[in-house]
């Protein structure tokens, strides 16, 4: 593989992993609130979070482009913080985060719902506050669902195409991910290159699934 191809692979794996890490704390928090609390506007938030899962990715990308573009929040950020979001690697990260967030939340929420609330209640009677209960009871007992959700989110991020191309463009060396590179190669009749990248995608997916299986097996109780 060429240096350019390696760069694409590294960039994709790195941004996808970073997006999973970035959404993890929010995902845990939101999933817990959805699983364990009733609050006004809960159904609206639920729907908003799920939207990117059912909307065409390109449409989601367009929303992000408008929102983070120069006339939206993006302009404000550029003026006051001095960096641009759209058509940079940050836009790739943003697209991956938004697209994979619903998968993480769904999986983690189900895992939290599977934790017997009695265990959390009894932990409270033993003197534990909310945070301690969350980190010592809820999270460890939901660990399988959390790891599963992270894997799903990471896999979704690895293969993201529509939203990324809208908000970050397809710039080799800057915003091009494996999916975009495969598309580009096929467009340019570079089939061998496309197949090499295809092989890399398979390998990345394999490593992700295998790692999570390994983590699960160690976390038996």
């Amino acid at each position, binding site marked *: 593989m060429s240096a350019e191809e390696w760069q694409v692979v590294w960039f994709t794996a790195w941004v996808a992993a970073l997006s999973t890490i970035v959404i993890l704390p929010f995902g845990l928090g939101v999933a817990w609130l959805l699983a364990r609390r009733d609050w006004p506007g809960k159904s609206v938030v639920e729907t908003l979070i799920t939207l990117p899962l059912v909307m065409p990715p390109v449409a989601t990308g367009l929303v992000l482009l408008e929102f983070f573009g120069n006339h939206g929040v993006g302009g404000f950020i550029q003026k006051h913080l001095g960096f641009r979001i759209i058509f940079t690697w940050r836009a790739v990260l943003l697209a991956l985060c938004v697209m994979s967030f619903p998968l993480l939340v769904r999986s983690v929420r189900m895992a939290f719902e599977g934790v*017997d609330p009695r265990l959390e209640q009894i932990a409270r*009677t033993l*003197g*534990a506050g909310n945070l301690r209960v969350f980190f010592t*009871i809820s999270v460890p007992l939901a660990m399988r669902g959390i790891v599963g959700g992270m894997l799903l989110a990471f896999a979704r991020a690895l293969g993201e195409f529509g939203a990324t191309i809208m908000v970050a463009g397809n710039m080799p060396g800057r915003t091009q991910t494996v999916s975009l590179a495969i598309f580009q190669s096929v467009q340019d009749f570079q089939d061998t290159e496309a197949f090499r990248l295809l092989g890399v995608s398979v390998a990345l997916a394999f490593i992700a699934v295998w790692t999570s299986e390994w983590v699960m097996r160690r976390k038996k109780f």
Partner: protein
Amino acid sequence: MTLLLKNISLPLAPFALEVDVEIRGRVTAIFGPSGAGKTSLLDLVAGLRRANSAFIQMDEQVLTDTAHGVLVPSRLRGVGYVPQDLALFPHLSVRQNLLYGHKPGNGGQVSFTFERVVEVLEIQPLVQRRVTELSGGEQQRVAIARALLSSPKLLLLDEPLASLDLPLRARIIPYLARIRDEFRVPMLYVTHDRYETLALADEMVVLVGGRVAQAGPMQELFSRPANLAVAGALAVETVLKGSIENMTNGLVMVAVGPVMLSAVEQNLPPNTREVYICIRAENVVLHKGSDNANSARNHLTGVVRSLVQDGLLVRAELDCGFSLTALLTKKSAEEMKLMPGDSVTAQIKAQHVHLIGR
């Protein structure tokens, strides 16, 4: 310890929990049929559930007062809770479970040290294990120890022995008695088993359909159930309909069909005629062969219809013109060579014949 439960109102599925009671016992049994709201009551005391209205005060501390918006969080209540399903943390070892809420000492004179609690409950050999590797009785003891180690001012036990078989129950009861005597933690003990109640409790609250049917010292409730619901909940074996024939010098003569029973006057409302007669099986003494003279007022001849073993005891169903249940030890039944079909005399002291107006 005084636990005040006032104006409690919590809607449950078929009825509402409505309780107003003051608890002073060392071990108070909350007794009642399943679905009577016993667990919900414990949840309210532990602060795990919100009631429509409630005032809960433990000694000087107000824990819940809905009228003034007071709701002390569970973690600050100083209440140890052993729920029916035990709720041991499956991802932690026995030691980690035990230490989860460990606070040595609650300011009182008793200190709940890890070593002492583990010793009293005999769980030293289990400490390194995973909770999933424990037997039912072991899990039970670990759950109780975990609650004790948080140095509670009050221990809530929700049918702690319900999931265990009979021989195992008999083995756990002494541990609970030791906790009561050594650590002197007041306990609220939910159960629908009267043998556990008899072995451990000194006071009891009978809950039927979400309401307190009767509360008071245990002996009093068992021998003087206030009404039929309490008698039923306490499983007083023989409950008969009868009518009072006459009262003289404090002795009441009651007719059950053709049979006359003597009872001691029990402050019945004036002009009561129709009554329920409650006789506890352990107060019926059986005698085989010719009757003997003794202090019991009631001597009833009857036939043994069936003998059923109930733990270490034998339950004899008799036909004395009405059906009467007697409880005797297995050994007595063997020595008497008691068999179904035998003719026997059942002797009951007049003060053990309890009357409830109807």
